[in-house]
């Protein structure tokens, strides 16, 4: 079953235009808030008025603005999980699932490990349990397309990790084309084989998580994958260019560029040195061990060092340090007028 969609949605300051083909498997769209991610899912589900374009699933035509076809949501067979799951508060867990199936589905309750909660009301459940109920309810509809909107937004950090790996195990077993939208790259990379980055209404890059990390196409992609971005002015220099950063200091890059640019540096590409031994200095805001690395937050960027490696420098709050980045680790993008907060 293949979903082919070409959707145009008017937004306040731009127009969202997304063309996508989904086969069985999970695709994630990542973008900053306001990029139109939720509206896109709602348009696919048939809930967003004002969307134009064409949507087909297999040989079913769901929407064709030109042919004046617009199937209402109740006829689209979509499993839609909104951010807050929207469980019916007046129905029990079993009742929520029954609403979609119009009969009891103990097998689904069993499969999603919520059978013991069958008679509970949604408000009694934890965040992870709510998500499982929402999934069971969506699957009870026997959907042909699964849409997940920020599936972890309603969860605290600890639950989030747990639920994410749960979902990562479950999704491939469903055999459904699945579209997930999120602002968090790590959620996308944990669940989806292909990731698209949405910026100002366009998919600016589509690829595997590794491809996006290795060669981000735009500054926003770099930012979403966790890179530091700084603005500056580039001028040619031996072996590449020199970028004079706004706010002082300079970085050398092996790329050739000139004029206003943004540079992206991965946190693990930064090393520390004495302040007077570098063209770029900064002040430590905090340094704390996180997940096997020493995360050093500076005023202008964040660096990640392997634990125990600090170049013999006192990385304490207020300490002035010099920063070094190998020229091949400094990626340059033409400067953008906005920073993706549209």
């Amino acid at each position, binding site marked *: 079953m293949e979903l082919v969609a070409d959707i145009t949605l008017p937004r306040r300051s731009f127009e969202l235009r997304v063309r996508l083909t989904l086969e069985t498997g999970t695709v994630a769209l990542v973008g900053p808030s306001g990029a139109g991610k939720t509206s896109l899912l*709602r348009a696919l*589900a*048939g*809930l967003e008025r004002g969307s134009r374009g064409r949507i087909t699933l297999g040989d079913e035509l769901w929407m064709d603005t030109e042919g004046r076809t617009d199937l*209402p*949501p*109740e006829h*689209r*067979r*979509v*499993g*839609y999980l*909104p*951010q*807050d*799951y*929207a*469980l*019916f*508060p*007046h129905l029990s867990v079993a009742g929520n699932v029954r*609403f*979609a199936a*119009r009969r009891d589905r103990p097998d689904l309750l069993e499969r999603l490990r919520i059978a013991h909660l069958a008679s509970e*009301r*949604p*408000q009694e*459940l*934890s*965040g*992870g*349990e*709510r*998500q*499982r109920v929402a999934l069971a*309810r*969506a699957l*009870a*509809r026997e959907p042909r397309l699964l849409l997940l909107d920020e599936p972890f937004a*309603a*969860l*605290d950090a*600890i*639950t989030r990790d*747990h*639920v994410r790996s*749960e979902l990562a195990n479950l999704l491939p077993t469903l055999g459904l084309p699945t579209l997930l939208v999120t602002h968090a790259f790590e959620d996308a990379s944990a669940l989806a084989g292909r990731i698209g980055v949405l910026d100002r209404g366009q998919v600016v890059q589509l690829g595997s998580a590794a491809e996006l990390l290795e060669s981000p196409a735009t500054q926003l992609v770099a930012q979403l994958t966790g890179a530091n971005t700084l603005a500056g002015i580039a001028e040619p220099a031996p072996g590449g260019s020199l970028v004079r950063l706004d706010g002082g200091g300079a970085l050398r890059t092996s790329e050739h560029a000139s004029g206003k640019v943004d540079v992206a540096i991965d946190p693990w590409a930064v090393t520390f040195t004495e302040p007077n031994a570098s063209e770029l200095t900064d002040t430590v805001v905090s340094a704390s061990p996180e997940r096997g690395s020493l995360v050093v937050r500076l005023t202008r960027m964040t660096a990640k060092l392997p634990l125990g490696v600090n170049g013999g420098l006192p990385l304490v709050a207020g300490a002035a340090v010099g920063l070094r980045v190998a020229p091949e680790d400094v990626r340059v993008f033409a400067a953008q007028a906005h920073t993706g907060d549209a």
Partner: protein
Amino acid sequence: MLALVIAFLILPLAALISYQPVRELLHGFGTRVATDAILVSLKCNGIAFALMVGLGTPFAYVLARARFRGRSVVLTLVELPLVMPPAVAGLALLVAFGRFGLLGGAERALGIDLAFTQAAVILAILFVASPFYLRGAIAAFSAVDLTLVDVAATLGAGPLRRMLSVAVPVAAGGLGAAAAVAFARGLGEFGATILFAGSFQGTTQTLPLAVYSLFDANLDQAIAIGVLLIIVSAAILLTAKLLARSWNSSPTSRFPGGRSSFASG
């Protein structure tokens, strides 16, 4: 000060209830005038209530969700009878539906005569009481998280099922509270009814009208019926309060959008 206010509110009630011995009071409940009025009140209010809830609920649901030009005008029109003096409402109904009123000709042609019939009592109650229900119902439906209704659609529910199986139960507390207030208002309806329907024992004389007509003839009986009305109204008020409380602490209003989920999976 507080004691004074409470005394002022309670004193008339106490005076009414203690005016005659309980035996006399119970006797007053059983007189012909009283039983006739009880039956007329029950029947007319019952029918008006059914019409109000049956037609008003979908109307309020649509009005709560729809966005169209002139919506605020419609909302104001709905609330207008709330501030209209009941006697004026009765006059308005008379000149609209009465024999010589706006629709009088059409009614004569169809062989119906509304004024001074039980149908007129029902119309008067509907006109005066249903705005209380509509206003409350619109507010209750507006408070329903739209995502719930949208998700119901993706789960295969058509418009009617979305309303009946999701919006109405989620808004039930607010709907019930509004219905109780409207019912109480209808039960006490006097001004519009007496002008539009008259006060004929056994056909249009509701309980409040019976109180008025007995006021000169038999004060004891008038007071007995008054006590009966107070008891019923107090019961309705209590019901409304309980329903409103259950509504205010319902999950949708406690956790807007259900986003406060917490704890481990």
